[in-house]
């Protein structure tokens, strides 16, 4: 049965912080290999707009608070809330003054990277507090060595930060269950920040209410009978403090609030469908395959991590069943109902894909918020597996050596896969489906967002003539291309073109539904032979065509 909460010492926090800092350092070290995804370009443009407003706020607070100033700055990309883009903006402003980063693009991305580090710290702390240091460390490292997570953690986007904020809100709520006003209020504040990160936060209230109800168990019926249902303070804070924080940090909502809130919700509830290939079929409208989320999880999360998750989750589930059969619990109680919360956190993130009308175009990133909980269970699984192994290994073998060897054996593959996947990120698949070549044969997506332009930037710089050449950018957003240019990763003579016909070089980021674009290039250039192909493990990902002289 679950154990009660352990206290965390400053050494634990220092260790967790060091894990997070090290992760961010790795992200900073590797970021220049990664091209800019479509959405990153849009958020850079939004962040620049918000930065101008922050500068105005610092200069003339009264003027900044006028509707005209707020609307002018915050109308850009108002379909997503403001927290992350504000952080991108502030990080960029700091860079402009202090030259903190290698380039401008990294200064925008840094605002997102810190959430990757934060997640590791949180997972270590939560796993340690709920179970043991081994469980916490295993959870943090399992998360750090998910190839897709590592890719997304680099970006000035919302998905890795949202995973962090979702888990952080759940953690604050979990802490609040031990009593006290502080963590209850913190839950409200963090929930407000989560709301201001991405709309995935909408699923937090139902998840935590469900947990509170299930955790109350039989007591809930008694509460109802006497007509006194006690609502946890943290949930009250989420209903009151959360929206206040959300409203305060998103200036776009300060005027015409109702209509703008409705517009925000409508955008996401009626989001257009994009294309996504799955097992050789491109889906662009419902019904979408329900197998997509579980299959892609199996195909992209390191298998040993999933096995550890299964050991942890099933071990907990069986223990719950045994405890239920044994009757009322004796001994220490887990006030937080920790694993139940992790299970709900995991399930709620996947639940939208139980419906065949939920789009799948986001690939794995749309349920990335489930992965911190998956890793917490994996940490639990590691702890259980280690304990079992120690019980059958001779007592003469030092326990730290056993722990180190078992840890290294379960970390080696995820680490190797993650390091190898960079900078191809979304092209990586686990050995379970035969890696990238196996995935190509199965008809799985190799990329989206056009970010692999970064992988051919060097070739373009070398081959586009200095006298000037126009490169058709294909799926790379104009703003993303512009950041590559500002970073100096694309030479000034490499000019973008919006259409293949007038260009002299053309990019093609392979996705099956975009093949027609490649054929347009063939007709315009009179050749089907690329001048260069960026490939990953022998799988072609991004092609460069050069118009032959006529």
């Amino acid at each position: 049965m679950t154990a009660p909460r352990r206290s965390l010492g400053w050494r634990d926090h220092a260790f967790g912080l060091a894990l997070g800092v090290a992760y961010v350092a790795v992200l900073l070290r590797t970021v220049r290999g990664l091209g800019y995804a479509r959405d990153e370009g849009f958020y850079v443009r939004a962040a620049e707009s918000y930065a101008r407003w922050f500068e105005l706020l610092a200069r003339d607070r009264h003027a900044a608070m006028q509707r005209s100033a707020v609307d002018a700055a915050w109308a850009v990309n108002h379909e997503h809330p403001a927290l992350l883009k504000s952080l991108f903006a502030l990080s960029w402003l700091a860079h402009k003054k202090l030259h903190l980063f290698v380039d401008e693009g990294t200064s925008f991305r840094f605002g997102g990277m810190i959430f990757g580090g934060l997640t590791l710290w949180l997972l270590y702390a939560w796993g340690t507090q709920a179970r043991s240091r081994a469980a916490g460390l295993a959870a943090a490292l399992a998360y750090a060595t998910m190839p897709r997570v590592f890719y997304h953690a680099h970006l000035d986007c919302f998905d890795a930060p949202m995973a962090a904020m979702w888990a952080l809100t759940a953690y604050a709520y979990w802490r609040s269950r031990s009593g006290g006003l502080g963590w209850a209020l913190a839950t409200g504040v963090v929930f407000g920040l989560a709301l201001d990160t991405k709309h995935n936060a909408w699923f937090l209230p139902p998840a935590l209410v469900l947990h509170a109800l299930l955790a109350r168990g039989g007591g809930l019926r008694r509460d109802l009978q006497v007509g006194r249902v006690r609502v946890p303070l943290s949930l009250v804070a989420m209903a009151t403090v959360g929206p206040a924080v959300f409203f305060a940090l998103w200036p776009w909502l300060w005027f015409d609030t109702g209509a703008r809130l409705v517009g925000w919700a409508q955008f996401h509830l009626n989001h257009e469908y994009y294309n996504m290939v799955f097992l050789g079929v491109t889906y662009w409208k419902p019904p979408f395959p329900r197998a997509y989320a579980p299959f892609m999880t199996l195909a992209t999360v390191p298998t040993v991590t999933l096995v550890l998750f299964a050991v942890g989750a099933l071990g907990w589930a069986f223990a719950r069943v045994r405890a239920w059969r044994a009757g009322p619990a004796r001994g220490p109680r887990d006030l937080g109902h920790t694993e139940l919360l992790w299970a709900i956190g995991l399930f709620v993130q996947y639940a939208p894909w139980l419906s065949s009308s939920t789009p799948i175009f986001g690939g794995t990133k749309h349920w990335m918020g489930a992965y911190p909980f998956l890793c917490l269970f994996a940490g639990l699984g590691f702890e259980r597996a280690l304990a079992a192994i120690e019980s059958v290994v001779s007592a003469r073998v030092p326990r730290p050596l056993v722990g180190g060897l078992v840890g290294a054996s379960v970390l080696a593959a995820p680490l190797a896969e993650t390091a190898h996947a960079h900078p191809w990120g979304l092209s990586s698949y686990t050995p379970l489906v035969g890696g990238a070549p196996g995935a190509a044969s199965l008809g799985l997506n190799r990329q989206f967002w056009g970010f692999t332009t970064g992988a051919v930037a060097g070739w373009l710089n070398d081959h586009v003539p200095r006298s000037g050449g126009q490169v058709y950018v294909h799926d790379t957003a104009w703003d993303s291309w512009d950041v590559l240019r500002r970073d100096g990763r694309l030479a000034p003579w490499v000019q973008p073109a919006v259409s293949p016909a007038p260009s002299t070089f053309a990019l093609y980021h392979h996705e099956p539904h975009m093949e027609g674009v490649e054929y347009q290039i063939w007709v315009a250039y009179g050749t089907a032979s690329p001048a260069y192909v960026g490939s990953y493990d022998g799988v072609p990902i991004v092609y460069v065509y050069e118009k032959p002289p006529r």
Partner: protein
Amino acid sequence: MKLAHLALLVPLLGLAELAGHLYFSRRAPRPEEWGATRAAVEAARQPGDVVVVSPLWAEPLARWQLGPTLFSLREVARPDVTRYPRAIELSALGAEDPELAGWPVRRETKVGRIVVRSRDNPAPPHVTYDFVDRLRPASAAVTVAKGEARTPCAWVEGLPVETQGLFGAAAWPSARFRCDGEGPYVFAGVTIIDDERDRPRRCIWSHPPAGGGELVTRFASVPLGKVLRGHTGVGHLIERDRAGAPITLRVLVAGEEVGRAVHADGDGWKPFELALAGHAGTTADVEFRASAPDAHSRHLCFEADSR
């Protein structure tokens, strides 16, 4: 065995996954390995052969490394393989092209991790005429027919190629029969569309004119075989919503209609075969007449040969 012993499988599985990662990440041939097959392919290849790659997803690497001589636009965007007497198949990872499944292997050599196979078409056709290859003023003329009116379309070379990007129509080629007085999309010219499997198909863009007219593409003095065989298509992204009107392609030989192909959205790259009966073995004029009750976005593209 105690249950605890099962836990030893966890680190073993981790090491097995690492081995699997190292194996699969090195399993597929690298670009230069495709390039290394050049000598073997050139030695095996005879005029009229087609070079195919299995698995198909690796083809861009072969196209890059082996260049346009072995992978010309015409062959890469072929209508199918049936017209070729032989195929040179470059195979990796044990893959085989399903279109060549019934073609006996004449010779097989291995170059590194790639197998170069020569395969014979068990029933090679004698293609007497390829209409796509002959869409030139010397052999073809294009008119817009509306009732009794006939408006000729002029052959123009050196026009800017029109490309509309994703969700746009196929590229409008630089050289085409331009039909002034109609929308700019009403022309006859050779382009490449994406079929329902996203494969490239080289074909004659033949967008019917609005108002119930026909776009008539006439080929003069065609040496005919026993059948006219071809395909119709629209482009997958254009037709996948199945919102457009059906398009009819009437085929006339020496003024006599020998058949028609009707293309409805969702048909994909749709084959047709028309028996030539009394016209078989003769030389005659052949007309392809494209029409649609509602011509909006009806980017019909067809290919045909006689064999």
